[in-house]
């Protein structure tokens, strides 16, 4: 078969998407219980090519599904109960709401109700890209995180995309794996990791002393760019990549806030409730005495995700708006 890791366009680098493909390949190779089920993922290789060549390499284990998100997840749950380790690819995270019932009511409650683990991995190609529009751009991690019984992963790096997907498949619980579409081709790494932080641990992506940005997924890179911009003015911004939304590594966040006294939570998802609200609630309730200024958060606007790049680029937080918010925060 073709070497997946060295496509001719990127002779030396591995993209975030390729890491996801490689993790799935690895899981299929390592564990006969793993199979992948989703729309257009068979011979076609998936709408984003996350399963390119996998159907050919693993006959009968990378299956095209009908356009039936509810039945896709439901059948994965059944297979998991019988000892399989299914990976479900939602074509877009947005479509997972059609399968929401099975994820949140069936999979999430199964272990608690019956004592029988339900190890399924549901991959959600999440987040906005220019021209994606209202129904191909959503970030739904907060909805799933609201339900007990689910693990929600939001990798922001090529390395995490690989290691966390492998760990997701190995976990005995249902995992909602929110991979960011914008990062698919934009993020590249030199090699796949040999080791990684475990699920549930946040990573300090940049150290600093003046303020902490808590973020995840694609917003990590916007936050890092903002931190770089502020460093020109002498500000040292610490940036935390949560990596997993649930569980949420409150300890690492609080430890950072204890060092900086100021915090900005940034998420690409909508403002009401959600991850940034959760992060701030935990800081306010558990770390109020660490604060030098009111905790702040930055999210997308409270409208559906717009189609046109002009609107889209303004709808969500960017390095520019994060830097602006940080300057406000540092003035307080």
């Amino acid at each position, binding site marked *: 078969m073709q070497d997946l890791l060295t496509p001719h366009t990127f002779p030396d680098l591995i993209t975030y998407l390729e890491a996801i493909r490689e993790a799935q390949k690895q899981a299929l190779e390592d564990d006969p219980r793993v199979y992948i089920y989703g729309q257009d993922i068979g011979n076609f290789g998936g709408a984003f090519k996350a399963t390119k060549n996998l159907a050919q390499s693993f006959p009968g284990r990378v299956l095209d599904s009908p356009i039936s998100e509810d039945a896709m997840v439901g059948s994965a749950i059944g297979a998991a109960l019988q000892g399989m380790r299914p990976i479900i690819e939602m074509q877009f995270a947005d479509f997972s709401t059609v399968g929401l*019932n099975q994820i949140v*009511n069936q999979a999430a409650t199964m272990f608690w109700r019956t004592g029988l683990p339900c190890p399924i991995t549901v991959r959600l190609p999440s987040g906005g890209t220019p021209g994606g529009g209202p129904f191909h751009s959503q970030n739904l991690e907060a909805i799933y995180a609201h339900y007990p019984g689910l693990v929600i992963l939001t990798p922001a790096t090529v390395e995490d995309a690989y290691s966390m997907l492998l760990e997701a498949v*190995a976990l005995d619980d249902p995992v909602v794996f929110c991979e960011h579409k914008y990062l698919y081709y934009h993020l590249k790494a030199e090699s796949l990791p040999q080791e990684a932080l475990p699920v549930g641990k946040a990573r300090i992506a940049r150290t600093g002393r003046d303020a902490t940005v808590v973020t995840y997924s694609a917003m990590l890179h916007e936050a890092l760019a903002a931190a770089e911009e502020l460093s020109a003015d002498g500000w040292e911004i610490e940036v935390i990549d949560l990596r997993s939304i649930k569980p949420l590594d409150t300890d690492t966040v609080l430890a950072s806030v204890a060092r900086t006294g100021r915090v900005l939570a940034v998420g690409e998802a909508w403002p009401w409730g959600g991850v940034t609200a959760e992060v701030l609630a935990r800081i306010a309730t558990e770390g109020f005495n660490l604060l030098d200024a009111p905790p702040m958060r930055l999210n997308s606007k409270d409208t559906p995700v717009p189609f046109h790049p002009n609107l889209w680029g303004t709808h969500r937080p960017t390095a520019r708006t994060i830097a602006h918010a940080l300057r406000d925060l540092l003035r307080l």
Partner: protein
Amino acid sequence: MLFPTHTAKKTAGGDGEGVFSVPPSNLALLSKNPCTQGTRLSKMSAMLQLAEAPRHLGKASDFIQTYRQAFQWMLLARVAEEKIASLYRSGKITGGVFLGKGQEAISVATGMALQEGDIFAPLIRDQAGRLAFGESLLDFTLTYLGARSGPMRGRDGNVHRGRPQEGLLPMISHLGAMVSVVNGMLLAHRFQGKTGTVGAASLGDGATSTGAFHESLNQAAVEKLPLILVVTNNQYAYSTPNDRQFACKDLVDKAIGYGIRGHSVDGTDLTDCLQVIGEAVADARSGKGPQLVVANNLRLAGHGEHDDSHYVSSHFKELALGRDCLEVAKEHLLKNDWADAAQLEAWTRNCLGQVEEAVAYSLREASPDPAQEDWCALATRHLAEGLPVHVR
């Protein structure tokens, strides 16, 4: 941390990491009853010959034996549910009570046609089928009475019980949602090289209107899974009559749209139920793909015991459709001399005794204790939020 090795992983729930704490079913209590004697396997071995070729009717004596057995399960279900309804009205039960009165024939036929290794996803009116499939009467009473020792441990109640590790799925309330889960279990059997197993799911007429019904039946058809979908049209979904639920002439016609075989059955006639379900199961088992069975009957109880079902048209009660399948079966037994009045009386006494014993046992069982409850929804305990460190 190095990556987990996949090859070394155990089967889900196989040795359980000590978290799987559902108590085992208590068959000892029931062993003295002829109804429940022996395992599901031995019971089914007699049944199967008939179920495999019902239209050809193997040996007449086998069918008689099957019929008598089915009747006893129906009777036990009826007696047990009436007892639970009575407990409900005496304030002993929290939550709802949902009876399968009038639907025992189709349910028992489904439960009896299944065998060890098969999958069954019952719905709310499947007490007879559950018993026939092998569920302990104690699972029924312990769950309804909310005992800590029941299979759901007080976390879920009444009809929301099951033992998925034994092929009996615990239903969620969302109608149609169990069918694709059965599909997945059958898909797993295919991956694992298990052959000859089937999965049955029960639905009502209301569930045929859901998207899940369509998605899962289509999925089963695409994958040619050995699924038997038993739709019991009892004329009302809660209070909504058929003409507000669907507009097709007969629900069984839906099978055509999915490219699968449909079967119609008189849900009030145990003979018909045993034969049609038996044939559908045999077809599924022999690789002929999904089977849609549509039974017609009338719900002879409220949606739940909180419902007086005043909306049920008296017109139905006068039709053959409105017959009580248990009465029909009883007459059939007597008419054919397959059982006499004394035998029926003995069976009834036996069922009453059995139910009484199960209820008394369950009432003595401890209720769940919030202080002892393991408030953890994840199998991977160290990832659970909000757990004190010492219990992670």
